[in-house]
């Protein structure tokens, strides 16, 4: 009896132990575009977001920056070496570990997968994988 009461108190204090790992998006992230080989014709696929954000700097060709403001629920896309960015609203489904936004007329729904200290964004049709690495200032 005493033991179960202690367990209940413990779980009340640490409810996160029962639920899925939390996602913390706030701040700037370096995004590396996942380039996938299509089995049928061995061509390389990269998703439309990556095409839109492509940097002129060869070193950062497949990379760009996403800056999340979770209070305003906005995300800013900016190119490496670029001077300006595009800010759009996004919705973070915290419990489902998903996010959605519309960028230049394209609707995206991503699953947010935790992998160590990074996140992988998996597009719902599995056509696009983005690796998010935290930029620490």
């Amino acid at each position: 009896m005493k033991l179960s009461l202690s367990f209940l108190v413990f779980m009340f204090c640490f409810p996160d132990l029962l639920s899925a790992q939390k996602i913390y998006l706030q701040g700037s992230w370096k995004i590396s575009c996942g380039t996938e080989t299509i089995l049928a014709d061995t061509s390389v696929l990269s998703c439309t977001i990556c095409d839109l954000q492509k940097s002129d700097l060869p070193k950062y060709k497949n990379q760009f920056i996403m800056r999340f403001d979770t209070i305003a629920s906005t995300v800013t896309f900016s190119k490496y070496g670029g001077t300006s960015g595009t800010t759009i609203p996004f919705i973070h489904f915290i419990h489902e570990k998903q996010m959605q936004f519309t960028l230049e007329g394209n609707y995206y729904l991503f699953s947010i997968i935790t992998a160590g200290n990074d996140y992988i964004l998996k597009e719902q049709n599995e056509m696009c994988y983005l690796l998010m690495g935290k930029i620490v200032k």
Partner: protein
Amino acid sequence: MKKKALIFILMQLWFFNYANAQVGEIGGRWNANCGLEYHPEFKADFVCGICDDFRNAEKQLKQFRMYFVNDSLYFPDMRGNEKKYFSYKYDLKLKVLKFKYKGISQTFKVIQAGESLILVSENQGVILLLKRE
């Protein structure tokens, strides 16, 4: 004489391609981070069988090591002591990795993301993030 030389050159080319396909960009030492994907039906993150076996219990990190050396894939523990060995095949052209784990065939798409690799299993159930050690 010419025929023998031609056969020799063809064999060299074949062997070079084979060796290349085995090692390629996947060769070397990697830290593997288990991708934890939320599954609404279980209301929890999914942890794959491989991750469950190799995770570092001390730090509670879903992380282990994968070493690709020649035709062999090693899973050393995080202290570098115990090593588990499997043979693997990597198709450099199609970017597909195959190995048998506990008697079950595992097939992964290999997706390059910057300096890292994302391994996605055939049935989408397992995602691993590989970073150079």
